[in-house]
Every structure is written in structure tokens, then in C-alpha cells.
């Protein structure tokens, strides 16, 4: 057996100021192999990748050994490392929106990458650029050379980033969460592309991800990291089939799943017969426009949506970015001006109310943001944040309010000692619990949750989702739950509406929609979700490929 292409031994990274360090990581990647580095925030997976390519942040120090094709990389000078980067190791980053220089054309950026290693220039560079864009399957590559990044979609941008990385035919490609920021269907395409690139060029890939679905789809081998240590390393199938370490097992268990074929579709009526009761929320042919009418650029964000949410039920809104799901949610909270139609909360039209009655209606409404960090005022203590709704509405005495805060903290399973802490001192999951507690302070009848778990690690997400489901059951509020993650919605929602370009394409009971989609788009969405099961990959792989060609 030949020596592996990449051999990381006892890599440790320490920082000049306190932050999670990499304690001891050893990873090998063989030629042509795809290895996944899996772990949650703070596990050190990204730092490991950065150490390999020599781009650690300031103040970081790496020890141990990183060998590429037998050459030691760690400790190389900046100049020598520059020669290695791009030529022997290349890297693809998570966020395609910012990974490209916004003021330079695609063609310039590729040419620059080629120039860096004394490669071709002029016409030859242009030809090579077209070749690269063709390789990453960008349509009309000739024309695209003159485009700026902002003229491309997210998926196309990631393809360009990939083209840049491949420009100098590196032996090893590091891919740091390359699909996390993308919609599922695009994610599926990029994953398939990565696989094909490996197959075509024999480039080894080290992929860093937290998504077990992606792992199952792409990797030959998996290395699980946790707090800077390798917990487990095994072949993909073996790991999924027989996880050895408890952490790996928990990680796998925390992944929300979609109903699988053998689950058997629960039979549920699609639209529950109107009970005669007032609905918690009604969308009546609502439309929302973005852009200014004065400038003549009106874009429909929501286009004639009619939906109804009964009391005590959870309505999941799913769709890809730009589908209008968030707008619909914000509409329910009265945060977006309506262009047409009517929104009724508990039978009352929010837009038509004024003064006292509007305030009363607002008390029955709550909203949980996607970003738990930004949704809490950094100046407020946790206690003040949770108490604020009571203060605003002047509910109860001071003591009663504090009592209520304690209750709520307890309800979201946070210790009472958190009252005095600031949001910054909390983890993301804890902050989202606080946001949830605050939303529940006034016992709302309707809660709008906009991607409440998308910024969280899987394990934390699982906890929050469980908490949410529990609270919803106990308190019986109705909820609009917005997420791009079909599996997450599947775990909490009673009903699901699938949105596309501002329109509802399918609406029905969650189990029915996910288990037996009626609309072709829903099916495509479901198919694109990487299933955390390596056995499924082999079955769906070709199908994905065909699908991509359809889309292109």
C-alpha cells in the first residue's frame, strides 16, 4: 500500500486567547479518496482544514505534522506555502456569496488563479477558464467569463469557487461545508458534481461538514471530531451501520429524518374539516410585493396565498430561499405591509385594528427569529428580555413578573441563575431557548417561528425541537413554523405548506405531504435531501444525476 496523499498526525492548534483548540487530530486521505471530517461547532474541524492549507487565523499556533505526498507542510514559510496552495492543495469554502471577489469578473479571477502559479496567460488562460467552467458544468462558459459574481446564483457561485480551486489541478481539495449555505436541490447538484470531479480527475477530497446526510452521500471514510479530538474514524458504511462511540451514536440519533418508504404513510385527512371554531390564523388570498412601486420594479414575494391554521396546530412552511415562506411568516406577525388580501389572527384583521384592540391582539402574537444572537438586545439581561413583554403591557406587579420569568426559564429548561446573564454569555441553543421563553411570556395563541433552529448544531437542534414540541403540546398555542429543512418541519408540524416563488404548490398533513408528495416539486425537494444513510446514496445517486441534467 502506497503512502497516503495527506497524512495529518497529532495536529494540535492553540490560540493566544481562549477559544476552542484542536487538541490532537490525525487524519489520512488517500489518493482519490473522499474523507469527511464531521463534528459540531467547536470540534476543530475547520481549524484542521485551515492548518492543512496554512491559513490559520492570527495568533494560532499549530504543532504536529501535516504531510502532503510525503512533504512536511507545517512550518513552511509563507512564500513556500504560497507555492503549495492552489497548486497542490486547494480549498472550497462554505459561503459562496462572499468567497468571490465582488468587483472582479469571473474570468479575471480564474486568470488570476492561473497566473499565481505561472500558468498560462492571455488567450490560453481564457481557453483554460472556459474549460474549467465547463468542467464545473456552468452553462455558456464563454459568456460567463465577463460576468461579476453578483450576477450568478448561489449554486453557480459555488461552482465558480470550485473551478478556481481546480484551476491548477491540485492533488487535494479541501471543502469546508461547501453546501451548507445552499438550497437542498442545489446542494444535491454540488455534491454530485464533487463526486464526478473526484471520479474524473482523481482528486482527493477532504470534506468538512456537520451534515450526516452529506457524509453519507459523498464520503468513503468518516472522521468524527469532538472538542478538538478524534472520537472515531471508520469507513462510511461501517460508521453508519455500527457507530462505535457514544458521541457518534448521539450525533446520528439527533439527525431529524423524513418519513421513509417503509414507515408506512399514516392516513390523515389533508384539510381537516372546518370545526366552526375561529381559526388561529387565516391567510385570505394574500399578496406581498417587494421593491418600490415608484421605481417600477415590483417583485411579488407572496402571490395569492390562502391558508388556514386551526388552534393548537402547527403549520410548517417549507420552500427554498426566495420562496416567500419567511414573508408569509412575517405577515402573520404584522411585520410586512400587505399588497392584497387579508390576514386574520384569531378572526381579527391585524391591519384593520388600532389602539387598544391592536395592542390586545399583539399580546396574543409572538415571533421567534432565526438568529438567536440578534433577536436579544445585547444590553438586556436574560431576565429583562423575558420580562419585557410584561413590562410593555404592564402586566402584574414587579414580583409577579419576576415569578413569571422564573417559571418561563424553568419551562425552557434553563437554570434560574441565567436571569442576570447577558445574551453574549449564552450559547446559541440557550439563546434560542430564551427567545422562546420570551415569546411565550404572554401566553400567546399564535407563535411564528422563522427558522428557529437553522443556526444551531444538530444535537442542539434536536433538543430545542423536542422542547418546542413539548411546550406546544402543553400550552396548546398555534404555530407557524418556517424552515428550509424538510426533516425539521416533519418532526414538529401537523400540516405543511410547500411554497415556491410566492405560491403554495402543495398543502396538507405533514406525514402525507412528506410521505406521499402529490406535487412534482415537492417530490424533487424531498429527493434532493441527502439521506443520512450510505445505502440510500447508491440507490439515489444516478437519479440525482439525471435530475440535474433536467434542471440544467
Amino acid at each position, binding site marked *: 500500500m502506497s503512502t497516503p496523499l495527506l497524512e495529518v498526525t497529532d495536529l494540535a492548534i492553540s490560540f493566544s486567547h481562549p477559544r476552542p483548540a484542536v487538541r490532537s487530530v490525525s487524519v489520512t486521505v488517500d489518493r482519490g479518496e473522499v474523507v469527511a471530517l464531521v463534528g459540531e461547532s467547536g470540534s476543530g474541524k475547520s481549524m484542521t482544514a485551515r492548518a492543512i492549507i496554512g491559513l490559520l487565523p492570527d495568533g494560532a499556533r499549530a504543532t504536529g505534522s501535516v504531510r502532503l505526498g510525503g512533504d512536511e507542510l507545517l512550518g513552511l514559510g509563507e512564500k513556500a506555502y504560497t*507555492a503549495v496552495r492552489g*497548486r497542490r492543495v486547494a480549498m472550497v469554502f462554505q459561503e459562496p456569496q462572499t468567497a468571490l471577489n465582488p468587483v472582479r469578473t469571473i474570468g479575471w479571477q480564474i486568470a488570476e488563479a492561473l*497566473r499565481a*502559479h*505561472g500558468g498560462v496567460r492571455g488567450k490560453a488562460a481564457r481557453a483554460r477558464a472556459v474549460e474549467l467552467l465547463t468542467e464545473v458544468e456552468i452553462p455558456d462558459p464563454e459568456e460567463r467569463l465577463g460576468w461579476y459574481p453578483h450576477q450568478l446564483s448561489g449554486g453557480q457561485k459555488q461552482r465558480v469557487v470550485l473551478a478556481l480551486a481546480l484551476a491548477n489541478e491540485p492533488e487535494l481539495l479541501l471543502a469546508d461545508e461547501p453546501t451548507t449555505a445552499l438550497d437542498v436541490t442545489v446542494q444535491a447538484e454540488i455534491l454530485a458534481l464533487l463526486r464526478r470531479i473526484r471520479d474524473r480527475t482523481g482528486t482527493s477530497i477532504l470534506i468538512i461538514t456537520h451534515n450526516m446526510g452529506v457524509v453519507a452521500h459523498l464520503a468513503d471514510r468518516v472522521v468524527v471530531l469532538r472538542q478538538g479530538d478524534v472520537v472515531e474514524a471508520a469507513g462510511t458504511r461501517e460508521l453508519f451501520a455500527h457507530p462505535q462511540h457514544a458521541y457518534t451514536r448521539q450525533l446520528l440519533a439527533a439527525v431529524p429524518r423524513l418519513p421513509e418508504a417503509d414507515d408506512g404513510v399514516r392516513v390523515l385527512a389533508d384539510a381537516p374539516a372546518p370545526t366552526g371554531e375561529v381559526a388561529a390564523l387565516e391567510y385570505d388570498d394574500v399578496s406581498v410585493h417587494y421593491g418600490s412601486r415608484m421605481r417600477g420594479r415590483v417583485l411579488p414575494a407572496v402571490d395569492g396565498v390562502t391558508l388556514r391554521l386551526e388552534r393548537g396546530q402547527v403549520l410548517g412552511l417549507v420552500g427554498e430561499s426566495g420562496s416567500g415562506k419567511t414573508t408569509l411568516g412575517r405577515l402573520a406577525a404584522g411585520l410586512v405591509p400587505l399588497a392584497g388580501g387579508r390576514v386574520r389572527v384569531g378572526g381579527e384583521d391585524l391591519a384593520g385594528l388600532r389602539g387598544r384592540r391592536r395592542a390586545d391582539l399583539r399580546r396574543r402574537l409572538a415571533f421567534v427569529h432565526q438568529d438567536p444572537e440578534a433577536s436579544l438586545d445585547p444590553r438586556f439581561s436574560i431576565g429583562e428580555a423575558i420580562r419585557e413583554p410584561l413590562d410593555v403591557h404592564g402586566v402584574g406587579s414587579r414580583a409577579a413578573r419576576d415569578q413569571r420569568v422564573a417559571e418561563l426559564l424553568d419551562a425552557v429548561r434553563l437554570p434560574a441563575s441565567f436571569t442576570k446573564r447577558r445574551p453574549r454569555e449564552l450559547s446559541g441553543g440557550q439563546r434560542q431557548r430564551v427567545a422562546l421563553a420570551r415569546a411565550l411570556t404572554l401566553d400567546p395563541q399564535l407563535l411564528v417561528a422563522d427558522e428557529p433552529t437553522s443556526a444551531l448544531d444538530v444535537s442542539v437542534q434536536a433538543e430545542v425541537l423536542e422542547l418546542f414540541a413539548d411546550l406546544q403540546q402543553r400550552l396548546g398555542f398555534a404555530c407557524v413554523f418556517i424552515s428550509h429543512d424538510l426533516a425539521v418541519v416533519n418532526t414538529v408540524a401537523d400540516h405543511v405548506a410547500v411554497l415556491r416563488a410566492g405560491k403554495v404548490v402543495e398543502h396538507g398533513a405533514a406525514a402525507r405531504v412528506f410521505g406521499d408528495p402529490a406535487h412534482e416539486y415537492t417530490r424533487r425537494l424531498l429527493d434532493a435531501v441527502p439521506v443520512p444513510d450510505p445505502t440510500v446514496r447508491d440507490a439515489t445517486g444516478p437519479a440525482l444525476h439525471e435530475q440535474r441534467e433536467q434542471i440544467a
Partner: protein
Amino acid sequence: MPRPPARPSLLRALVLALVSLLVVSSLAACSSAVKEASSGSEDSGPTDGGTLRIGSTNDIVPASIFTNSSDAANTLIGAVYDSLIDYPQDSLDPQPRLATSWEVAKDGLSITLQLRDDVTFHSGREFTSKDVEFSIKTWADPTWTVQLQRTAAAVTGFDTSDPHAITLSFDHPLSNIFDLLDMLPIIDSESFDQLKEGKAYVGTGPFVFTSWTPSSKLEFTRNDDYWGDEPHLDGIEVDIVSDPQAQVSQLRSGQLDLITGASNRDLETLGKDDSYTVTPFDGSVQQIYVGADLANPDLQDVKLRQAIAYALDRQRIVDDVFRGQGTPINLPWPDYSPAYDAKANETYAYDPDKAKELVSQLGSHPTIPLAYSAGNANYEAVAQIVQSDLEAVGIKTELQPVENSQFIKQLIGGTFGGLWILQHGYAHYTPSTLAVSAYPFNADKNASHFVDKQYKEDADAAWERVDGSDSGAVEIYQRLNKDLLDNLFLIEIALLHFTVASSDQVHDLGMSKRGELDLDAAYLSK
């Protein structure tokens, strides 16, 4: 790894650009602006040629070109125009200029002047008696706001039948008629419209006006057809340098040859330096004074004004502010004036005890405003010393720097409401000129709101005389002196001399009594 062929680095280019810019301009290897600036006299002989560069504090104002109000205007008038007669620096004995001789009628109601017949204007036109008439009539026009307007207007008859002689006749005798003839420039009537716009100044003088760049500079070249001795200088350039400090800097760096606006302190310093010459001109003087607005009830009591007069340490002001370039005075006249009275001039010698006593007799009085023109270092210093002197004897004042245009408005409107500090001129001419021309002394209306029958009588008597210096006149002047000292509506501080500083290459500077630089004989040496 093959290195890409070296490209001219942007960074390197930038550094180069900046460095070269700095080097080129600061090293001044081949051509130095400083050297060129001071090379005006380098190639010329010791007497002829060169352009004299004069620094002036104020630019000319075409609308008030004849008011003697700015040093640039004075230089212009002195260089471009001739007057009919000339007073020497230190006397009131008229000397011929454009007029070769004259005769005053016995009754004092007319004067006949013989004019030169070899004089032409810069335009080439011959100078005749008509031009004298035109010039006097121009001065008599109130829109030009000339100080001697009343005197010019008193000339009512013009006999110009002989182009080279003129007879002027008056309604009443004019004791100061020679003052008018000394001050009045002979103006070209043909180019008068352009003069109003500041486009052309055509006279008969030693230098020809060539251009004016507002708030920047005036340029003159030698008049090759000058009727008198041809000037040595090729030309004059007047640079407007409003900051006195900057004038000194530019004199020191060789950009200017002569400056008119240096502070007395700088003059003192320059005087100690061999490379510079400081030239005081004794004949042309100005007086700095404290004015009192009698409309202010506190100032109405002459005792308070007397207290102020006693309280002022005039010698200290002359020494500290004017660096000795002046004389403490109680009366405005210079020592050669027929009105000069050495004894009377010391009536209010520095005596703070007397001042205190006077103040104590008055009882309490509120703080009196003390105004001065803002931005003038001398006035500011004098004002502060005056304030301090007055405070020492128990008179409280509040300094009020007033912007110049408002200062003049207050002066005209008589709205100071307190004390003010300013300079006046005209005391070195026939004494009556002061009383009828200098605004603060005007017996009819003045900024002090001082109205006094006796004073008016005496002023008019002085003016309407045939001779301004005979014993009868002196008698009237003594009465005037008494009026001034008794009423003290204007408390004189010091008599100041015009002083200029120049590089040691500048020689034979002169100055007219009017305060105009006389450059007829000036030259630049190597």
C-alpha cells in the same frame, strides 16, 4: 516553481511617484523659486533696472481709490499720479510739481497756477488746465467720499482759458487750499469710466499702471516719457499680503523687497538685522486716540474723560506696542505744525493718582464698552493696555472687538455708546484741514456726539482764512487747542510715523506727506 516575469509593481510605481514629486519640488536643484524670486536685481547695475516688489496689507477698492484708505491704493496713487504741488516731509511750504508757480489773490478768494507744458498722460494725451478742473470736480463729487471733499467743493470757479495755467476761485478764503493741491492726483478724464471699474489708472506719474489682479497684485512699469527724472526701477509689483506676519516671512525669504504692513515689533527686529533696512518717515503721521461717545451718560461728565486722559500711560503704549516709533501726545499736531504747542501737549501727563481722585469724585459708574477694530494687533494691544490702565484707576471697561465694516458703520452712525480706539490723520496738514476733513473732529457731526458752538466757530474761523500759518491763524489754533483739551471728546494717545521695512538692496526710498511711497529715485542694488 517558475516565477512569473516581473511586472512593474503598482506599489513600487506609487512610491516612486511620491518620492520623486517630493524630491523634484523640494530639492529645487536646477531652478529655485526662491532664487528666482530674489534674482530681480542680480543682473542689473547698481542703479538702473529691477522690479520692486512691495507687500501691501490691503487691496485697492476702486470705489474708494482716492480715500487714502489702503496702502496699496496709496502706492498706486503715488506711482501713477502727480499732484500740482508737493509739501516737503516736515513742513507746510509748498514746492512745485505739475504747477511751476502760483499766486494767491490778496482777498484769498482765488489762486492762479502756472502749469508745466511738457507733461503727457500715460495715454499720450497732453496735460492741460482742463485736467486740473476735472480732477478737482471729481474730488468734489460726494460719491468718491474723499476727505477733502468739502475743500474741493469750495472751489467754485475754474478759469482754464490758458491750457498751461489755471485760476481757481472760492466762495470764501481757504486756508488749506495747498493741502488740496498737494493731495489731489491729476486724473485723466478719458479713462475715467475704466478707473471706476478698476480697469485703468491713467495719470502723468513716474510709473504706468499695467494690471490689477484683485486680492492678489498690482503691476506697474516705468514711464519712459516721464517729465521729471526717469525712475531707476523697471517696474513695481504690489503684492497683497494681508497678514503682516506673512509679509515679514516673504521679506525674509526674498519674495518681497519692501513691506508696508509689518508690526512695530517686527520692524524693531528687522532693524537689528543688517540685511534689512527700516525707514521711518517722520512727516507723514497718524494719531492713535481713544474716542468717547458723549451719548453715553457715564461719559458725559468731563471729569471721567479727564480721568481717562490722566490714566493713560502713553509712554508705555509707545514703547511696548509701537516700539518707540511714536510720540505721546495730548494734541494731534506734529511739532512743525503752526498749531503745535509743546506745553499744551503735556496737559494730561500720566498721573494715575489724579485720575483716581477724579474717579472717586464721580461715585459709581457701570462698565463702559471699549470698541476697537477686530483683527488689528496694534489696536488689540493698545485696547488691552488702555483697559488695564483704566482699571487701575477704577474705571471698568469691556473690550469689544468689532468687525471692520461694522466698526465703520458705528463710527458713522455714532453708535459706539462708549469708548473706542482708532487712528486719524490730517493733523500734519494745515490745522483747519483736520477740523473740516477728519471725521472724528468734524464740528458739525462727529462720532462723539460732541456739539459745541465755540468749537464750531473756531473750526470755521481756522478754515476760512487766507493764510493758514500767520500769527492770526496761530491764535485761532490756540483757541482750538483749548477746545480740544477742555472737552476731551477725543483723547489722543500717540503720534505715529509711517515706517517701512525693506531688504538692504532697496535704496533711496521716499514718502510723500500723503503717505504715498515715493519711488522716483529708488533703486535696487545687487
